[in-house]
Protein backbone atom coordinates (compact mmCIF):
# COMPACT_ATOMS: atom_id res chain seq x y z
CA UNK A 1 0.00 0.00 0.00
CA UNK A 2 2.77 2.31 1.01
CA UNK A 3 4.58 1.65 -2.20
CA UNK A 4 1.51 2.49 -4.26
CA UNK A 5 0.96 5.69 -2.36
CA UNK A 6 4.55 6.80 -2.70
CA UNK A 7 4.47 5.95 -6.38
CA UNK A 8 1.36 8.02 -6.85
CA UNK A 9 2.94 10.80 -4.89
CA UNK A 10 6.01 10.66 -7.09
CA UNK A 11 3.90 10.65 -10.22
CA UNK A 12 1.96 13.59 -8.88
CA UNK A 13 5.09 15.57 -8.13
CA UNK A 14 6.67 14.87 -11.46
CA UNK A 15 3.45 15.87 -13.24
CA UNK A 16 3.36 19.21 -11.49
CA UNK A 17 7.04 19.77 -12.01
CA UNK A 18 6.54 19.18 -15.72
CA UNK A 19 3.45 21.32 -15.90
CA UNK A 20 5.35 24.17 -14.34
CA UNK A 21 8.31 24.13 -16.72
CA UNK A 22 7.02 22.60 -19.89
CA UNK A 23 3.99 24.60 -20.86
CA UNK A 24 3.70 22.71 -24.16
CA UNK A 25 1.78 19.97 -22.32
CA UNK A 26 -1.14 22.39 -21.99
CA UNK A 27 -1.79 22.22 -25.72
CA UNK A 28 -1.49 18.51 -26.36
CA UNK A 29 -5.20 18.12 -26.89
CA UNK A 30 -5.89 21.41 -28.67
CA UNK A 31 -4.90 22.75 -32.07
CA UNK A 32 -6.42 22.18 -35.48
CA UNK A 33 -8.82 19.24 -35.15
CA UNK A 34 -8.62 17.60 -38.56
CA UNK A 35 -5.73 19.24 -40.41
CA UNK A 36 -6.25 19.12 -44.16
CA UNK A 37 -3.92 17.50 -46.62
CA UNK A 38 -2.82 20.38 -48.80
CA UNK A 39 -1.74 20.55 -52.41
CA UNK A 40 -2.55 17.09 -53.73
CA UNK A 41 -1.69 18.48 -57.16
CA UNK A 42 0.06 21.68 -58.19
CA UNK A 43 -2.60 22.74 -60.62
CA UNK A 44 -6.25 22.33 -61.51
CA UNK A 45 -5.37 19.71 -64.16
CA UNK A 46 -3.53 16.40 -63.94
CA UNK A 47 -2.63 16.37 -67.67
CA UNK A 48 -5.71 16.07 -69.87
CA UNK A 49 -8.36 15.97 -67.20
CA UNK A 50 -9.02 17.83 -63.98
CA UNK A 51 -7.43 17.29 -60.58
CA UNK A 52 -9.24 17.85 -57.29
CA UNK A 53 -7.52 21.22 -56.85
CA UNK A 54 -9.53 24.39 -57.36
CA UNK A 55 -8.42 27.99 -57.53
CA UNK A 56 -8.82 29.87 -54.28
CA UNK A 57 -10.90 33.00 -53.83
CA UNK A 58 -9.90 35.92 -56.07
CA UNK A 59 -7.36 33.84 -58.00
CA UNK A 60 -7.27 34.13 -61.77
CA UNK A 61 -5.60 31.42 -63.80
CA UNK A 62 -4.55 32.12 -67.35
CA UNK A 63 -4.03 28.82 -69.12
CA UNK A 64 -2.63 27.82 -72.48
CA UNK A 65 -2.87 24.14 -73.40
CA UNK A 66 -1.29 22.95 -76.60
CA UNK A 67 -1.03 19.62 -78.42
CA UNK A 68 1.33 19.25 -81.37
CA UNK A 69 1.07 16.86 -84.32
CA UNK A 70 2.12 13.20 -84.45
CA UNK A 71 5.76 12.70 -83.45
CA UNK A 72 6.28 9.56 -85.49
CA UNK A 73 4.26 7.42 -87.88
CA UNK A 74 2.80 8.55 -91.17
CA UNK A 75 2.49 12.25 -90.28
CA UNK A 76 5.47 12.57 -87.96
CA UNK A 77 9.19 12.30 -88.29
CA UNK A 78 11.66 14.84 -89.47
CA UNK A 79 9.42 16.18 -92.28
CA UNK A 80 7.12 17.81 -89.71
CA UNK A 81 9.96 18.27 -87.22
CA UNK A 82 8.45 15.51 -85.06
CA UNK A 83 5.02 17.08 -85.02
CA UNK A 84 6.07 20.60 -84.11
CA UNK A 85 4.95 21.99 -87.47
CA UNK A 86 1.39 20.93 -86.73
CA UNK A 87 -0.90 21.54 -83.84
CA UNK A 88 -3.89 19.31 -83.26
CA UNK A 89 -5.52 21.42 -80.55
CA UNK A 90 -4.93 24.64 -78.65
CA UNK A 91 -6.99 25.94 -75.77
CA UNK A 92 -6.72 29.37 -74.23
CA UNK A 93 -8.68 29.81 -71.06
CA UNK A 94 -9.34 32.08 -68.13
CA UNK A 95 -10.42 30.52 -64.88
CA UNK A 96 -11.36 32.21 -61.63
CA UNK A 97 -11.92 31.28 -57.99
CA UNK A 98 -15.22 32.69 -56.74
CA UNK A 99 -14.78 31.17 -53.30
CA UNK A 100 -12.08 28.94 -51.85
CA UNK A 101 -14.15 25.97 -53.04
CA UNK A 102 -15.84 27.09 -56.26
CA UNK A 103 -14.10 28.00 -59.49
CA UNK A 104 -15.46 28.84 -62.92
CA UNK A 105 -13.77 28.97 -66.29
CA UNK A 106 -14.19 30.04 -69.87
CA UNK A 107 -12.08 28.69 -72.70
CA UNK A 108 -11.76 28.67 -76.44
CA UNK A 109 -10.24 25.72 -78.18
CA UNK A 110 -9.66 24.68 -81.72
CA UNK A 111 -11.17 21.25 -81.17
CA UNK A 112 -9.90 18.02 -82.59
CA UNK A 113 -12.91 15.74 -82.89
CA UNK A 114 -15.83 15.85 -85.28
CA UNK A 115 -16.78 19.31 -84.06
CA UNK A 116 -14.38 22.26 -84.10
CA UNK A 117 -14.16 25.84 -82.88
CA UNK A 118 -15.22 25.11 -79.34
CA UNK A 119 -16.16 27.41 -76.50
CA UNK A 120 -16.32 25.84 -73.07
CA UNK A 121 -17.78 26.97 -69.78
CA UNK A 122 -16.86 25.05 -66.66
CA UNK A 123 -17.52 25.02 -62.95
CA UNK A 124 -15.69 22.96 -60.38
CA UNK A 125 -16.65 22.57 -56.75
CA UNK A 126 -14.39 21.19 -54.04
CA UNK A 127 -16.75 19.02 -52.05
CA UNK A 128 -14.49 17.20 -49.59
CA UNK A 129 -10.89 17.58 -48.53
CA UNK A 130 -8.63 14.79 -47.31
CA UNK A 131 -7.44 15.24 -43.73
CA UNK A 132 -4.13 14.19 -42.22
CA UNK A 133 -5.77 12.05 -39.54
CA UNK A 134 -7.90 10.18 -42.13
CA UNK A 135 -11.08 11.61 -40.67
CA UNK A 136 -11.76 12.20 -44.38
CA UNK A 137 -9.66 9.73 -46.38
CA UNK A 138 -10.05 11.35 -49.82
CA UNK A 139 -10.59 14.67 -51.54
CA UNK A 140 -13.58 14.93 -53.85
CA UNK A 141 -14.34 17.64 -56.40
CA UNK A 142 -17.24 17.86 -58.84
CA UNK A 143 -16.85 19.21 -62.34
CA UNK A 144 -19.42 20.31 -64.88
CA UNK A 145 -18.50 21.47 -68.37
CA UNK A 146 -20.60 22.68 -71.28
CA UNK A 147 -18.97 22.81 -74.71
CA UNK A 148 -20.45 24.65 -77.68
CA UNK A 149 -19.21 24.22 -81.21
CA UNK A 150 -19.13 27.47 -83.17
CA UNK A 151 -18.24 25.96 -86.56
CA UNK A 152 -20.35 26.25 -89.69
CA UNK A 153 -22.65 23.27 -90.00
CA UNK A 154 -21.71 20.51 -92.43
CA UNK A 155 -24.04 20.15 -95.41
CA UNK A 156 -24.33 16.35 -95.10
CA UNK A 157 -26.99 15.45 -92.46
CA UNK A 158 -25.14 12.21 -91.62
CA UNK A 159 -22.12 14.04 -90.25
CA UNK A 160 -21.54 14.58 -86.53
CA UNK A 161 -21.02 18.26 -87.31
CA UNK A 162 -24.34 18.74 -89.08
CA UNK A 163 -26.27 21.15 -86.90
CA UNK A 164 -30.00 21.33 -87.45
CA UNK A 165 -30.45 23.68 -84.53
CA UNK A 166 -28.38 25.23 -81.74
CA UNK A 167 -28.86 22.28 -79.39
CA UNK A 168 -26.89 20.04 -81.78
CA UNK A 169 -23.80 22.12 -81.04
CA UNK A 170 -23.78 21.33 -77.34
CA UNK A 171 -21.88 18.66 -75.38
CA UNK A 172 -21.62 18.19 -71.64
CA UNK A 173 -19.35 16.59 -69.08
CA UNK A 174 -20.16 15.71 -65.49
CA UNK A 175 -17.29 14.34 -63.47
CA UNK A 176 -16.54 13.37 -59.90
CA UNK A 177 -12.83 13.53 -59.08
CA UNK A 178 -11.61 11.48 -56.13
CA UNK A 179 -8.00 11.94 -54.99
CA UNK A 180 -5.79 10.73 -52.25
CA UNK A 181 -2.30 11.90 -51.44
CA UNK A 182 0.16 9.38 -49.98
CA UNK A 183 3.21 11.50 -49.21
CA UNK A 184 4.95 12.14 -52.52
CA UNK A 185 2.37 10.14 -54.48
CA UNK A 186 -1.07 11.46 -55.42
CA UNK A 187 -3.64 9.18 -57.04
CA UNK A 188 -6.96 10.03 -58.65
CA UNK A 189 -10.03 8.20 -59.93
CA UNK A 190 -12.42 10.20 -62.09
CA UNK A 191 -15.76 8.62 -62.95
CA UNK A 192 -16.99 10.67 -65.90
CA UNK A 193 -20.20 11.06 -67.84
CA UNK A 194 -20.04 12.57 -71.31
CA UNK A 195 -23.18 13.59 -73.12
CA UNK A 196 -23.05 14.83 -76.70
CA UNK A 197 -26.26 15.98 -78.32
CA UNK A 198 -24.98 15.21 -81.79
CA UNK A 199 -22.74 12.27 -82.64
CA UNK A 200 -21.73 10.29 -85.72
CA UNK A 201 -23.45 7.09 -86.88
CA UNK A 202 -23.24 4.30 -84.24
CA UNK A 203 -21.46 6.59 -81.83
CA UNK A 204 -23.00 7.01 -78.37
CA UNK A 205 -24.72 10.16 -77.12
CA UNK A 206 -24.21 9.09 -73.52
CA UNK A 207 -20.90 7.59 -72.54
CA UNK A 208 -19.49 6.63 -69.17
CA UNK A 209 -15.75 6.63 -68.70
CA UNK A 210 -13.32 6.07 -65.86
CA UNK A 211 -10.20 8.18 -65.57
CA UNK A 212 -7.15 7.24 -63.53
CA UNK A 213 -4.28 9.60 -62.91
CA UNK A 214 -1.45 10.35 -60.60
CA UNK A 215 1.60 12.34 -59.74
CA UNK A 216 4.90 11.25 -58.24
CA UNK A 217 6.88 14.13 -56.80
CA UNK A 218 10.55 13.92 -57.65
CA UNK A 219 11.55 17.12 -55.88
CA UNK A 220 9.89 20.21 -54.47
CA UNK A 221 9.26 21.58 -57.94
CA UNK A 222 9.29 18.62 -60.31
CA UNK A 223 6.91 15.69 -60.57
CA UNK A 224 6.06 12.84 -62.93
CA UNK A 225 2.44 12.76 -64.04
CA UNK A 226 0.34 10.17 -65.86
CA UNK A 227 -3.29 9.85 -66.83
CA UNK A 228 -5.51 7.33 -68.61
CA UNK A 229 -9.20 7.24 -69.53
CA UNK A 230 -11.23 4.12 -70.18
CA UNK A 231 -14.57 4.74 -71.96
CA UNK A 232 -17.29 2.10 -71.49
CA UNK A 233 -18.61 1.67 -75.02
CA UNK A 234 -21.53 -0.57 -75.92
CA UNK A 235 -20.63 -3.72 -77.86
CA UNK A 236 -22.60 -2.56 -80.89
CA UNK A 237 -20.68 0.67 -81.02
CA UNK A 238 -17.35 -1.10 -80.44
CA UNK A 239 -18.03 -3.60 -83.25
CA UNK A 240 -18.96 -0.84 -85.65
CA UNK A 241 -15.82 1.17 -84.90
CA UNK A 242 -13.66 -1.92 -85.34
CA UNK A 243 -14.77 -1.94 -89.00
CA UNK A 244 -14.30 1.77 -89.67
CA UNK A 245 -12.21 4.29 -87.74
CA UNK A 246 -10.36 2.69 -84.85
CA UNK A 247 -10.85 4.25 -81.45
CA UNK A 248 -8.21 4.22 -78.74
CA UNK A 249 -8.18 5.08 -75.07
CA UNK A 250 -6.27 8.25 -74.27
CA UNK A 251 -3.06 7.83 -72.30
CA UNK A 252 -0.80 10.69 -71.29
CA UNK A 253 2.50 10.84 -69.41
CA UNK A 254 4.46 13.92 -68.57
CA UNK A 255 6.58 16.05 -66.31
CA UNK A 256 5.25 18.82 -64.12
CA UNK A 257 7.57 21.72 -63.38
CA UNK A 258 6.82 24.66 -61.18
CA UNK A 259 8.83 27.81 -61.81
CA UNK A 260 7.78 30.46 -59.31
CA UNK A 261 4.53 31.74 -60.74
CA UNK A 262 4.01 29.16 -63.47
CA UNK A 263 3.05 25.54 -63.51
CA UNK A 264 4.36 23.97 -66.66
CA UNK A 265 3.44 20.52 -67.95
CA UNK A 266 5.34 18.82 -70.73
CA UNK A 267 3.36 15.81 -71.76
CA UNK A 268 3.13 13.06 -74.32
CA UNK A 269 -0.28 11.77 -75.30
CA UNK A 270 -2.07 9.94 -78.10
CA UNK A 271 -5.11 12.20 -77.62
CA UNK A 272 -5.30 14.98 -80.16
CA UNK A 273 -8.05 16.93 -78.38
CA UNK A 274 -8.04 18.91 -75.16
CA UNK A 275 -11.75 18.91 -74.26
CA UNK A 276 -13.09 15.95 -72.27
CA UNK A 277 -16.05 15.75 -74.68
CA UNK A 278 -13.56 14.92 -77.42
CA UNK A 279 -10.50 13.15 -76.04
CA UNK A 280 -12.57 10.59 -74.10
CA UNK A 281 -14.87 9.39 -76.92
CA UNK A 282 -13.06 10.52 -80.06
CA UNK A 283 -9.38 9.61 -79.75
CA UNK A 284 -8.47 7.90 -83.01
CA UNK A 285 -4.70 7.90 -82.75
CA UNK A 286 -2.57 5.22 -81.22
CA UNK A 287 0.67 5.19 -79.25
CA UNK A 288 1.68 1.98 -81.02
CA UNK A 289 1.52 3.62 -84.44
CA UNK A 290 3.69 6.54 -83.44
CA UNK A 291 0.62 8.76 -83.20
CA UNK A 292 1.60 10.40 -79.97
CA UNK A 293 2.45 14.01 -79.64
CA UNK A 294 4.08 16.24 -77.18
CA UNK A 295 2.12 19.03 -75.68
CA UNK A 296 2.29 21.52 -72.91
CA UNK A 297 -0.02 23.12 -70.40
CA UNK A 298 0.98 26.44 -68.95
CA UNK A 299 -0.83 27.88 -65.98
CA UNK A 300 -0.14 31.36 -64.64
CA UNK A 301 -2.01 32.39 -61.52
CA UNK A 302 -2.72 35.97 -60.50
CA UNK A 303 -4.39 37.33 -57.39
CA UNK A 304 -7.05 39.95 -58.00
CA UNK A 305 -8.72 42.24 -55.47
CA UNK A 306 -8.45 42.14 -51.74
CA UNK A 307 -5.38 44.35 -51.45
CA UNK A 308 -7.22 46.98 -49.41
CA UNK A 309 -9.00 44.45 -47.19
CA UNK A 310 -5.70 42.79 -46.54
CA UNK A 311 -3.98 45.93 -45.25
CA UNK A 312 -6.62 46.41 -42.55
Amino acid at each position, binding site marked *: MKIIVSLMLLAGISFYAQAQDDLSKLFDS*TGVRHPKVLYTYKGTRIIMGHSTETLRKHELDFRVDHRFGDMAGEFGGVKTFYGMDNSTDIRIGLEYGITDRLMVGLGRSKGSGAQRQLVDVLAKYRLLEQTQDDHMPVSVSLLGTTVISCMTSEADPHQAAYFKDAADRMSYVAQAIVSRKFGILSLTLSPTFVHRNRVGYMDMNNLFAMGVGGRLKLSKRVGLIAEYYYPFRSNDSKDYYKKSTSLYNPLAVGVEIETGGHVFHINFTNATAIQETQFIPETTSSWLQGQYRWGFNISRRFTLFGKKDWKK
Partner: protein
Amino acid sequence: MKSLICLLFLALLSSPLLAQDIFSSKNTHFSFFSSSPLEDIEAKTEKGVSAINIKTKAIYFKVPIASFQFRQKLMQEHFNQNYLESDKYPYAEFKGKVLDDADLSKDGTYQVTVEGILNLHGVDKTYKEKGTITVKGGNITAGATFNIRIADHRIDIPTIVVKNIAEVVAVTVNALYTVVNR
Protein backbone atom coordinates in the same frame (compact mmCIF):
# COMPACT_ATOMS: atom_id res chain seq x y z
CA MET B 1 -5.26 4.48 3.24
CA LYS B 2 -5.00 7.59 5.31
CA SER B 3 -2.03 8.77 3.37
CA LEU B 4 -3.91 8.21 0.10
CA ILE B 5 -6.68 10.48 1.29
CA CYS B 6 -4.08 12.97 2.38
CA LEU B 7 -2.52 12.82 -1.06
CA LEU B 8 -5.83 13.34 -2.84
CA PHE B 9 -6.53 16.26 -0.58
CA LEU B 10 -3.13 17.71 -1.33
CA ALA B 11 -3.64 17.25 -5.04
CA LEU B 12 -6.97 19.04 -4.85
CA LEU B 13 -5.45 21.80 -2.81
CA SER B 14 -2.46 22.32 -5.01
CA SER B 15 -4.27 22.46 -8.36
CA PRO B 16 -6.12 25.76 -7.80
CA LEU B 17 -2.87 27.28 -6.60
CA LEU B 18 -1.13 26.08 -9.72
CA ALA B 19 -3.93 27.27 -11.99
CA GLN B 20 -3.41 30.82 -10.88
CA ASP B 21 0.20 30.70 -12.00
CA ILE B 22 -0.38 29.53 -15.54
CA PHE B 23 -2.06 31.66 -18.16
CA SER B 24 -2.80 30.50 -21.67
CA SER B 25 -3.80 32.02 -24.99
CA LYS B 26 -5.68 29.86 -27.51
CA ASN B 27 -5.69 32.26 -30.45
CA THR B 28 -2.34 33.92 -30.47
CA HIS B 29 -1.81 36.24 -33.40
CA PHE B 30 1.32 35.82 -35.48
CA SER B 31 2.26 37.81 -38.52
CA PHE B 32 5.36 38.34 -40.55
CA PHE B 33 6.50 40.83 -43.06
CA SER B 34 9.30 40.70 -45.56
CA SER B 35 10.17 43.70 -47.66
CA SER B 36 12.31 43.43 -50.76
CA PRO B 37 12.88 45.64 -53.79
CA LEU B 38 10.43 43.58 -55.86
CA GLU B 39 7.60 42.73 -53.53
CA ASP B 40 6.37 42.84 -49.97
CA ILE B 41 5.34 39.54 -48.50
CA GLU B 42 2.93 39.48 -45.62
CA ALA B 43 1.13 36.70 -43.81
CA LYS B 44 -0.86 36.27 -40.63
CA THR B 45 -2.59 33.72 -38.48
CA GLU B 46 -4.71 33.65 -35.33
CA LYS B 47 -4.20 29.93 -34.82
CA GLY B 48 -1.13 30.13 -32.59
CA VAL B 49 -1.17 29.09 -28.95
CA SER B 50 0.85 30.38 -26.03
CA ALA B 51 1.19 30.00 -22.28
CA ILE B 52 3.03 31.80 -19.53
CA ASN B 53 3.75 30.81 -15.98
CA ILE B 54 3.93 34.01 -13.96
CA LYS B 55 5.78 32.33 -11.11
CA THR B 56 8.51 30.41 -12.94
CA LYS B 57 8.39 32.97 -15.83
CA ALA B 58 8.41 30.16 -18.37
CA ILE B 59 6.84 31.19 -21.69
CA TYR B 60 5.76 29.05 -24.62
CA PHE B 61 4.55 29.65 -28.18
CA LYS B 62 3.43 27.25 -30.89
CA VAL B 63 1.98 27.99 -34.32
CA PRO B 64 0.87 25.67 -37.16
CA ILE B 65 2.83 26.74 -40.25
CA ALA B 66 0.00 25.84 -42.63
CA SER B 67 -2.35 28.23 -40.83
CA PHE B 68 -0.52 31.33 -42.11
CA GLN B 69 -2.77 33.17 -44.56
CA PHE B 70 -1.33 35.15 -47.46
CA ARG B 71 -3.26 37.47 -49.70
CA GLN B 72 -1.75 35.67 -52.67
CA LYS B 73 -2.61 32.00 -52.34
CA LEU B 74 0.13 31.03 -54.74
CA MET B 75 2.66 32.56 -52.35
CA GLN B 76 1.03 30.61 -49.55
CA GLU B 77 1.45 27.45 -51.60
CA HIS B 78 5.14 28.14 -52.21
CA PHE B 79 5.62 29.05 -48.54
CA ASN B 80 4.18 25.72 -47.43
CA GLN B 81 5.57 23.47 -50.13
CA ASN B 82 8.92 24.92 -51.06
CA TYR B 83 10.21 27.07 -48.23
CA LEU B 84 8.84 26.04 -44.85
CA GLU B 85 7.94 22.45 -45.91
CA SER B 86 4.93 22.35 -43.62
CA ASP B 87 4.33 18.66 -44.40
CA LYS B 88 7.64 17.81 -42.75
CA TYR B 89 7.73 20.57 -40.15
CA PRO B 90 4.11 21.39 -39.31
CA TYR B 91 4.80 23.67 -36.32
CA ALA B 92 7.09 26.42 -35.16
CA GLU B 93 7.68 26.27 -31.42
CA PHE B 94 9.35 28.54 -28.89
CA LYS B 95 10.25 27.58 -25.34
CA GLY B 96 11.75 30.29 -23.22
CA LYS B 97 11.90 32.29 -20.04
CA VAL B 98 11.36 35.90 -19.05
CA LEU B 99 14.75 37.04 -17.75
CA ASP B 100 13.66 40.13 -15.80
CA ASP B 101 12.46 39.96 -12.21
CA ALA B 102 9.20 41.82 -12.77
CA ASP B 103 6.35 40.62 -10.54
CA LEU B 104 3.80 39.53 -13.11
CA SER B 105 1.11 38.95 -10.51
CA LYS B 106 0.74 42.73 -10.11
CA ASP B 107 -0.95 45.06 -12.60
CA GLY B 108 1.39 47.07 -14.78
CA THR B 109 3.26 47.20 -18.08
CA TYR B 110 6.61 45.53 -18.14
CA GLN B 111 9.36 45.77 -20.74
CA VAL B 112 10.92 42.36 -20.62
CA THR B 113 13.64 40.33 -22.27
CA VAL B 114 12.80 36.78 -23.22
CA GLU B 115 15.39 34.15 -23.96
CA GLY B 116 14.70 30.73 -25.39
CA ILE B 117 14.91 28.31 -28.24
CA LEU B 118 12.87 28.69 -31.41
CA ASN B 119 12.35 25.58 -33.47
CA LEU B 120 11.46 26.61 -37.00
CA HIS B 121 11.79 24.45 -40.12
CA GLY B 122 13.33 21.75 -37.92
CA VAL B 123 16.21 23.99 -36.84
CA ASP B 124 16.73 25.11 -33.22
CA LYS B 125 18.16 28.54 -32.57
CA THR B 126 18.48 30.55 -29.38
CA TYR B 127 16.86 33.98 -29.44
CA LYS B 128 17.05 36.78 -26.90
CA GLU B 129 14.40 39.36 -27.74
CA LYS B 130 12.61 42.27 -26.13
CA GLY B 131 8.86 42.32 -25.61
CA THR B 132 6.09 43.88 -23.60
CA ILE B 133 3.89 42.19 -21.02
CA THR B 134 0.85 44.01 -19.67
CA VAL B 135 -1.03 42.73 -16.64
CA LYS B 136 -4.44 44.18 -15.94
CA GLY B 137 -7.25 42.83 -13.83
CA GLY B 138 -6.38 39.15 -14.12
CA ASN B 139 -5.62 39.29 -17.86
CA ILE B 140 -2.19 39.34 -19.41
CA THR B 141 -1.24 40.55 -22.88
CA ALA B 142 2.14 40.03 -24.45
CA GLY B 143 3.59 41.40 -27.65
CA ALA B 144 6.90 41.34 -29.42
CA THR B 145 8.45 42.02 -32.78
CA PHE B 146 11.73 40.45 -33.73
CA ASN B 147 13.74 39.44 -36.75
CA ILE B 148 14.43 36.00 -38.11
CA ARG B 149 17.21 35.40 -40.62
CA ILE B 150 15.77 32.78 -42.93
CA ALA B 151 19.23 31.33 -43.60
CA ASP B 152 19.57 30.55 -39.86
CA HIS B 153 16.74 28.07 -40.19
CA ARG B 154 17.98 26.46 -43.39
CA ILE B 155 15.15 27.88 -45.50
CA ASP B 156 16.46 27.83 -49.07
CA ILE B 157 15.45 30.52 -51.48
CA PRO B 158 16.24 29.60 -55.08
CA THR B 159 18.39 32.11 -56.92
CA ILE B 160 15.62 33.01 -59.42
CA VAL B 161 13.40 34.46 -56.69
CA VAL B 162 16.12 35.63 -54.34
CA LYS B 163 15.34 39.26 -55.17
CA ASN B 164 11.67 38.77 -54.19
CA ILE B 165 12.30 37.53 -50.68
CA ALA B 166 14.17 39.43 -47.98
CA GLU B 167 16.92 37.71 -46.02
CA VAL B 168 15.48 38.94 -42.75
CA VAL B 169 11.79 38.59 -41.90
CA ALA B 170 10.13 40.67 -39.18
CA VAL B 171 7.85 38.53 -37.02
CA THR B 172 5.19 40.04 -34.77
CA VAL B 173 3.40 38.14 -32.04
CA ASN B 174 0.47 39.21 -29.89
CA ALA B 175 -1.24 37.11 -27.26
CA LEU B 176 -4.06 37.71 -24.82
CA TYR B 177 -3.86 35.29 -21.91
CA THR B 178 -6.48 34.13 -19.50
CA VAL B 179 -5.91 32.03 -16.42
CA VAL B 180 -5.94 28.28 -16.95
CA ASN B 181 -8.91 26.71 -15.19
CA ARG B 182 -8.52 23.12 -14.20
